[in-house]
């Protein structure tokens, strides 16, 4: 292993960490260090997460009564649109890639920085500019199309600031594309000697697969948003049927990006789960090669399933069948990943630390989210539950139960590496359990009212659904507490937490073999890799057949 030489060095020759490299505001805002940029991203997406969360808290309170309590229809519509736009484009899409991807990718492959450090900083500025533009949209009155911008509602009939919102999302897309290009190039060009493709940690593979989707899908989103602006602002006939346009064209373009976007959100989460499980089970990830193939096939087949969002849109019933079949196929690799994670624990030596608890919650909720995805891939069931709370529950299981749980797992796993401090483990356990409980209470009832027929995006709703909505709102309050908890104990740990040491979890992986927090150049000497990843002490050569 490579750690022998590196572990002894810090005492012999202490060097400043990336955090102490400079203390001025300019040293942060003009940095090209991937680790500092990652921290900038953490701070900005956390702000957006709470803005999006606040918007939906108001919506959930309003839904306590079936006839509306304190919001007008228009305010209600603008709030759920705000929640959707902010959470999708300013939290979920950038969440794990721009923070942990940025921080860890160079460290994990033994590089000094990203391939294009300045492009990396530009990506953050683009993201922040887009985010401020989205907030400006809110200040001038908001937008009420839903995050999906369906035409001709968005191009002719909506009263909100559609053009400003579309511009914000358009710009954030360039941040995504630049980040994706940076990750792909870095993985190809900057791997340390001996870091073959078959020795890459699965988190690196997940970021690589995600980047491919980002680079290939995001331009289509950019095009469809430009076409909306062209029609709404300049009056070019594109989607409006009265002028010979086709409103369904927009849905095809939009979902061609927005379905792969779900994989931009979930693939990095899968990478995080693999790293954490191997470390706390002290074993190699079961089926390393199968894990790589499933991530790559999810990334590729994910481009061919967009039509399952349009089963009732007026698409040909035979096209529906094809998209249904492909959606079942894309679920196979996801199922295989769940089995492999479970099998990773088999004959391990397991310590149930906070990061593992978050990952357990990720696997459980992702499994439920994935299984309900099979319902939606089945055309006749989708016809009934499309655009109801069943769909809302399903995608929150994947995006919140899945991605957000994994985000917190990553935060707790790499926190000692990023900050050099440990958080109180007991508090982190409470946080993870509260989050799981709050999530289940919020979203499980939504499957039931969804199948009963409660439509999504409804401000007023039939009275029979009220009890379930009350349960959902109570769950949302628990969830709010669960999200605020880490904000407090993690902030507390920055000052008062125990010093973590270089490798508190005794994890393999190059990122753990440098100091915590790492120096600006990441490694004193470029590491040389001689082993496969996850070679933990409970591994035996005869046991790693897959």
């Amino acid at each position, binding site marked *: 292993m490579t750690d022998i030489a590196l572990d002894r060095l810090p005492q012999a020759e202490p060097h400043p960490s990336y955090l102490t490299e400079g203390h001025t505001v300019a040293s942060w805002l003009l940095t090209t260090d991937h680790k500092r940029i990652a921290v900038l991203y953490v701070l900005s997406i956390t702000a957006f997460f709470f803005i999006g969360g606040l918007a939906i808290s108001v919506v959930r309170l309003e839904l306590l009564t079936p006839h509306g309590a304190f919001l007008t229809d228009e305010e209600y519509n603008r709030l759920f649109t705000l929640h959707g736009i902010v959470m999708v484009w300013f939290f979920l899409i950038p969440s794990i890639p721009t923070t942990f991807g940025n921080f860890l990718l160079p460290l994990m492959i033994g590089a000094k920085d990203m391939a294009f450090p300045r492009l990396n900083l530009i990506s953050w500025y683009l993201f922040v500019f887009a985010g401020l533009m989205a907030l400006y949209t809110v200040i001038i009155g908001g937008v009420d199309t839903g995050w999906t911008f369906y035409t001709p509602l968005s191009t002719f009939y909506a009263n909100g600031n559609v053009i400003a919102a579309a511009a914000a999302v358009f710009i954030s897309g360039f941040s995504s594309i630049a980040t994706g290009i940076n990750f792909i190039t870095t993985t190809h060009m900057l791997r340390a000697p001996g870091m073959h493709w078959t020795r890459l940690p699965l988190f690196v593979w997940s970021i690589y697969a995600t980047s491919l989707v980002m680079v290939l899908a995001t331009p289509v989103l950019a095009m469809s948003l430009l076409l909306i602006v062209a029609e709404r602002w300049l009056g070019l006939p594109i989607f409006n049927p009265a002028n010979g346009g086709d409103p369904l064209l927009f849905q095809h373009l939009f979902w061609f990006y927005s379905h792969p976007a779900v994989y931009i959100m979930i693939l990095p989460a899968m990478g995080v789960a693999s790293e954490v499980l191997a470390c706390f089970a002290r074993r190699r990830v079961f089926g390393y090669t199968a894990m790589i193939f499933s991530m790559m096939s999810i990334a590729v087949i994910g481009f061919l399933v967009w039509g399952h969002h349009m089963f009732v849109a007026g698409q040909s019933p035979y096209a529906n069948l094809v998209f249904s079949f492909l959606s079942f196929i894309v679920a196979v690799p996801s199922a295989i990943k769940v089995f492999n994670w479970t099998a990773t624990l088999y004959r391990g030596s397991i310590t149930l630390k906070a990061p593992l608890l978050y990952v357990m919650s990720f696997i459980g909720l992702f499994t439920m989210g994935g299984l309900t995805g099979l319902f939606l891939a089945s055309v006749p069931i989708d016809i009934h539950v499309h655009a109801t709370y069943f769909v809302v529950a399903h995608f929150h299981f994947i995006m919140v139960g899945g991605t957000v749980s994994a985000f917190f797992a990553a935060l707790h796993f790499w926190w000692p590496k990023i900050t050099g401090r440990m958080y109180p483990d007991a508090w982190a356990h409470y946080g993870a359990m509260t989050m799981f409980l709050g999530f289940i209470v919020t979203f499980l009832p939504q499957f039931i009212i969804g199948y009963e027929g409660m439509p999504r995006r409804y401000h007023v709703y039939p009275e029979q659904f009220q009890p379930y909505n009350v349960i959902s709102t109570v769950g949302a309050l628990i969830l709010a507490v669960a999200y605020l908890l880490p904000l407090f104990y993690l902030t507390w740990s920055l000052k008062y937490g125990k010093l973590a040491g270089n490798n508190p979890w005794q994890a393999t992986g190059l990122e753990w073999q440098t100091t915590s927090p790492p120096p600006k150049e990441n490694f004193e000497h470029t590491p040389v890799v001689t082993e496969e990843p996850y070679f933990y002490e409970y591994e035996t050569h005869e046991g790693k057949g*897959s």
Partner: protein
Amino acid sequence: MNPFSFFSRVSGYAVAIDDFFFALVALSILVTAIVFALLIGFCVRYRAGSPHSGGPRPGLELEITWMVATFFLFLFVFWWAASSELQALHAPAGTLDIHVVAKQWMWKAQQPNGIREINEIHAPIDTPVRLIMTSQDVIHSMFLPALRIKQDVLPDRYTYLWFTAKKAGAFHLLCTQFCGTEHSRMTGRLVLMTPQDYARWSSTQQPSQSMAAEGETLFRSLGCSGCHGPNSSVHAPDLTGIYGHAVQLSSGRTITADDAYIRDSILLPKRDIVAGYQPVMPSYQETVSEDQIVSLIAYIKSLSDEHALNAKGERK
């Protein structure tokens, strides 16, 4: 008895969908239970310091086993879903057709005999009923949860839903495509009645005119009869008996003269020219409303009814 008996399900199709749904629920609960049991079981059995930790694990053969098993399980679910979709695809012949026009934020319906309704659709049970739907503005979606069916309603296009209900009563009718400010208020009732009650209800309502008669009036007042009428000197296709039949186009294609075709011919007459005719007809896009088109179609349809065809024969 269904465990969720508070669901209303009023057609054989709805019952079949529920059976499929609850089978999938059972499967999902089983899989979730296995995953949770294994996760928790492994964490206990292989906790740090346990004598069971370590040792060889199964290899590629297990990986391939669950890969193949998952694939065939999913294939089976797909087959079940696809076969129930295909069975429900085509409405039987001779449906009772109700026209629906959606607009921000109301549903307008028109019964075959001309009765107009707003946010309400009356329909008989034990009879195949078809909704022929279009929108005046944005995309809406007609959702009838008690029948487990839904279809988006698009501007400038017809989409269809059909059902044969088995149980009378009043059920939700909801818009499920976000359509602007008052989207959540674009709701109404589907009133299902026994055929006798439906006949009684139809006769007590007083439509000013049947839809076809209204269409005939429009046919004259809009000037359609000037060219398409039997005594016209302009060379235009005779519309008697065309509804539901194949029409030869000048492009060489053949098209069935259904609602969508007639609607297109009124609004975009230059798109599909009938073979042997000149494209002389102006577009009525600015002149007629969706409601009027529906009446015009009903009139043209009535020209294909048996007695209309007989009358034509007598005239010759």
